[in-house]
C-alpha cells in the first residue's frame, strides 16, 4: 500500500524575509510581469478547482513557485497543501531543506513514497534510471493524486526546459488514467483558461510556463528566496560515470572496481535523485556568480539529467504515461 505522512505546521501565513519595499520594486518590469502572470494562473486554479495541490520538488523552480504562491494569496495562508514525491534517493540536503522550509513557512506538507516500489527493491542503481523513474516518480505521483483525490496539481515546469513542454498548455488536461494527449490539447486563447474536467480527470497547472531558467534565478535573487545549498559550488565527493559527475551522497552508491570518489569543486544546475543527477565543475558560490555563469554557459540545464539522454523524444513518451 502507498503510504504518506502528513505534516501540518502552524496555520499562520509567513513570508520569507524580504526587505520592506513596495511590491515589485526590486523586480524588473520583465520579472514583475512574469510574477503577475503566475499569480493570475494560481488564483484561477484555486477558484475553479475543488482540491488543488502544489507539487514541490525542492528545486529552484519549486522554490520560486512556492514564493509566488505565498504572495498570490497573502494575507491568507496557502489554500492548498504541498506534495513531495519522495523517491528515497534525493540528496540529504534536499530533504533537510524541504523540512526546514515547511516549518518556516507553515506549509501543509504531504510526503508520499511508493511503498510498493520500495518493497520491490526498486532503485536507480539496481533497476536503472528509467524503471526507477517510472515506479518511484510517475507511479508514485499517480498514487498520491488518486489517494487524496486532487483535481489540480501545480508544477514548476517551464516551457523552455524541454521540447515537448514547449507545446504543452498552461492548464494541461490529464485523463482519469493521468495520461497526457499531446494531439488533443485544448487551445488556450488570451488568458482565459478552460478548467472544466469530468469526474476522475485532473489538470496539471504550470504557472511558470513562460519563465526561462535565467528568469528563475533572477527572481530568486531579487526576492531573496532560499534555495538548496547544492546549487552553490563547494568541494564535494564525486565519481565520474558516463560523462556525468555523480556525487556520492551516501554509501548506497556502490563504487566500481578501482573507483574512488574525489573531492571536486562542483555545483548542480538541477536537482533530482542523486545517482541520476550530474554535477558541473564550477566556482559559482553566490547567486551573482551563478547568474554570470549561466549567461556564458554553453550547455542546457537538462544536460545533467540521466533520464533525458535515452533519445530526444523520451520526455514526451514519459509524459504521455503520466510523468509530470
Amino acid at each position, binding site marked *: 500500500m502507498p503510504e504518506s505522512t502528513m505534516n501540518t505546521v502552524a496555520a499562520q501565513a509567513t513570508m520569507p524575509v524580504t526587505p520592506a519595499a513596495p511590491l515589485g520594486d526590486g523586480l524588473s518590469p520583465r520579472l514583475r510581469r512574469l510574477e503577475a502572470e503566475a499569480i493570475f494562473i494560481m488564483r484561477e486554479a484555486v477558484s475553479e478547482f475543488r482540491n488543488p495541490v502544489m507539487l514541490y520538488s525542492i528545486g529552484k523552480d519549486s522554490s520560486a513557485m512556492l514564493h509566488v504562491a505565498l504572495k498570490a494569496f497573502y494575507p491568507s495562508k496557502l489554500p492548498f497543501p504541498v506534495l513531495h514525491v519522495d523517491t528515497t534517493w534525493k540528496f540529504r540536503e534536499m530533504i533537510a531543506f524541504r523540512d526546514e522550509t515547511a516549518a518556516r513557512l507553515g506549509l501543509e506538507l504531504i510526503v508520499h513514497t511508493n511503498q510498493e516500489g520500495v518493497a520491490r527493491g526498486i532503485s536507480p542503481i539496481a533497476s536503472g534510471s528509467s524503471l526507477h523513474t517510472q515506479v518511484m516518480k510517475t507511479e508514485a505521483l499517480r498514487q498520491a493524486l488518486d489517494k487524496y483525490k486532487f483535481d489540480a496539481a501545480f508544477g514548476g515546469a517551464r516551457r523552455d526546459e524541454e*521540447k515537448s513542454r514547449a507545446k504543452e498548455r498552461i492548464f494541461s488536461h490529464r485523463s482519469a488514467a493521468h495520461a497526457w494527449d499531446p494531439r488533443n490539447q485544448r487551445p488556450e486563447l488570451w488568458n482565459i483558461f478552460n478548467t472544466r474536467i469530468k469526474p476522475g480527470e485532473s489538470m496539471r497547472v504550470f504557472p511558470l510556463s513562460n519563465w526561462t531558467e535565467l528568469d528563475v534565478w533572477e527572481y530568486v535573487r531579487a526576492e531573496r528566496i532560499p534555495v538548496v545549498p547544492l546549487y552553490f559550488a563547494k568541494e564535494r565527493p564525486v565519481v565520474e560515470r558516463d560523462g556525468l559527475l555523480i556525487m556520492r551522497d551516501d554509501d548506497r552508491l556502490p563504487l566500481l572496481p578501482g573507483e574512488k570518489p574525489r573531492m571536486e569543486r562542483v555545483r548542480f544546475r538541477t536537482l533530482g535523485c542523486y545517482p541520476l543527477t550530474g554535477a558541473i565543475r564550477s566556482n559559482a558560490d553566490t547567486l551573482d556568480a551563478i547568474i554570470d555563469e549561466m549567461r556564458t554557459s554553453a550547455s*542546457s540545464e537538462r544536460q545533467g539529467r540521466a533520464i533525458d539522454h535515452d533519445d530526444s523524444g523520451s520526455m514526451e*513518451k514519459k509524459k504521455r504515461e503520466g510523468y509530470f
Partner: protein
Amino acid sequence: MDSLVQSRSLAPASAVADTRPALRLLTCGSVDDGKSTLIGRLLYEQNLIYDDHLAALERDSKKHGTNGAEIDFALLLDGLEAEREQGITIDVAYRYFSTRKRSFIVADTPGHEQYTRNMATGASNSELAVLLVDARKGLLPQTRRHAIIASLLGIRHVVLAVNKIDLVDFDRTVFDGIAAKFSEFAAQLNFTQVVAIPLSARYGDNVSLRSARMPWHAGPSLLDYLESVDVEPGVQGKPFRMPVQWVNRPNSDFRGFAGTIVSGSIRPGDEVVVLPSGRTTRVARIVSADGDLAAGQAKDAVTLTLADEIDVARGDVIAGTGNRPQAADQFAAQLVWMSSHALQPGRSYLMKIGSQTTIATVTELRHRVDVDTLGKLAAKTLALNEVGVCNIATAAQVVFDPYAENRDTGSFILIDRYSNETVAGGMISFALRRATNVHLQNLTVGKQARSALKHHRPAVLWFTGLSGAGKSTIANLVEAGLHARGVHTIMLDGDNIRHGLNKDLGFTETDRVENIRRIGEVAKLMTDAGLIVLCSFISPFRAERQMVRELLPEGEFLEIFVDTPLDQCIARDPKGLYRRALAGEIKNFTGVDQVYETPESPELRLMAGQQEADALANQVIDELVRRDICVKH
C-alpha cells in the same frame, strides 16, 4: 533546441539593459515559407543555441533534414515526435530567447490551411506578427488569411518578412512589388504599423545584421526592428478594469478582492464601481505581502480592499466610475470556431469571459467571414477553422468592453458542456439592446394561479430513447392513468409535431436542435397554463435535453430515459425504419449512423427491455406522486 535561455554574449551581466516585459510575437505564413528556418537562424546568429543542442541538431539534420549535409535550422523548432517524423509543425509551440536588448516569447504556429485555430490561439496572446512570404511566390491566399486573422485577433504591428530573397537574386523590384501589394491589401485591416523587410533566413541576410547584398534596403534588419518596436502604448492610460478572480478571506476582519488589473491604474482613495451590481465605493488599500502599495497598474496582480462592505464575488468587475464597461445579456460577436463539431445555433454552451462563466446560446448566425477576402457568406453553422459574426444571448448579465477597445474584457471562449472541449474563441463587438426593449408582458393571472385551479403542479415529462424503445406506448399509458386521476395533461409526440409546427425541419443535426428548441418552448407555454406535458421524442443529444431543462424552473423537467437495448429495438422495428436505415435508405438515423447520447442522470430510468409497459407507466406515476406533482388517487 528547447532551452534558449540567454545569450552567452561577451557582454558582462550588467550590460543586459533592457528590462521591458518580453515582446510576445507570432510567426506565421504558408508552410515552407521558412518560419522555422528564420527563428532557428536568429537563435544561431545570436549564439543562443547550447552546444549539446547544436550537437543534437547536427545529428538530427542528417536523419530528418531537408538540406542534405547542411544544418537544417528548422529542426530546432519542431517539437513533438510524430510531427518531426512527418516534417510538419502542427501546433502552437512557444520559444523563449533574449538578446542583449530585449527578451522575446515567440509563438510558432503552423502554416497548414486546416490550422487556422492554432494561428488564432497564437495571435490571441501576441502583440506583433511576423508574416513570412516566399519571394518567389509572393502573396498567397494563406498570407492574406493569416493577415486577416492577425488583424481580427487585435494584432496591430506586423512585419512582412519577404524571405528566400536569395532565390530571386536579391532583386529589389520583386521585393517592392510584394510590399506594395501587401500594403494595398492591408489598408482594409486594422494594423497600425506594417514594416516590410527583405531577407534570407537560410543565409542570414537582414536577419540580425543588415545585408551587404541588399544595399538598396534602407530599413532595419528584422532583429533591429524587433528590439526597438514599442507595442504597448496606452494600456496604462485606459480606464481602470479589474475582474475579481478570488475573494481573499483569511478571517472575518479581512475581505480582499484579488485580481489582475487589465487596464488603467488604481490608488487607494479612488472611487470605483462594482459591476454588474453597479454599487460604488472607494478603494481602501492595495494589500501585498511586502506591505501596502501606493498604486497598482495594468498587468499587476493585486489584492484590493474596499471602503464599504458591499457584495463582491468572483466574476464581478471592479472599474473606474468615469468610463464604465457595459453589462448586457445579448450582444454581437465574432467567433473563431475551433472544434470539429460544428456550431449549433440554439444549443447552449458555457461561456467564460474574464473570471465570469455563464451559459450562452448563439441566437443567430449573421454570416460567415471569408478569411481569404473578408467577404460575407451566408451560413447556417460554423465548422472547424471558420470565422463568423453572430448574436449571442447569455443566461446572466455579462460585463464587457468591445474587443476593439479592450482585448482583455472583450474576449471570451465557448466550451462544450459535455465534452468540455474549448469550441470557440470570441470577440464582442457591441451589446444588442433588443433584450431591454422587448419587455416581458406582465401578466395578472400567473402560472401559480392557473395551476392552483387544477390541484396538481405543472411538469414536463420528457421521454427520451431510441426509436422503437416504447416511449409513445408508455407515455400514452401514463397519460391515461393521469387523466383518470383528474390530472390535466397534453401529449406532444414527435411525429405529430413534425407534421405541423415543425414541418419545415429535416433531420440534420442543426434541424434536430431547432426541432427540440421549438418543442421546449411549446412545452414551457403549456406548463405556464398549468398542464402536465408529456413529450416523447428520441432527442438523441444531451445538450438539447439540457436546453429544455433550462427553460423550465428547477423540478419541473423530468427526464425519463426509456432504456431499451438497441438490438431489441431493431428486433421490434415497429415501423420498419431500422431495416431501411440499415439498408442505407434513411440517413442520420439514431442508433444506426447517428449517436444516441445516453442521459447521465435522468430523473427516471425505465428498464424497458425487461418489463411490461403497464408496470413502467406505473413507475412514472409513482415518481410524480413521490415528487408531489400529483396525488396518488
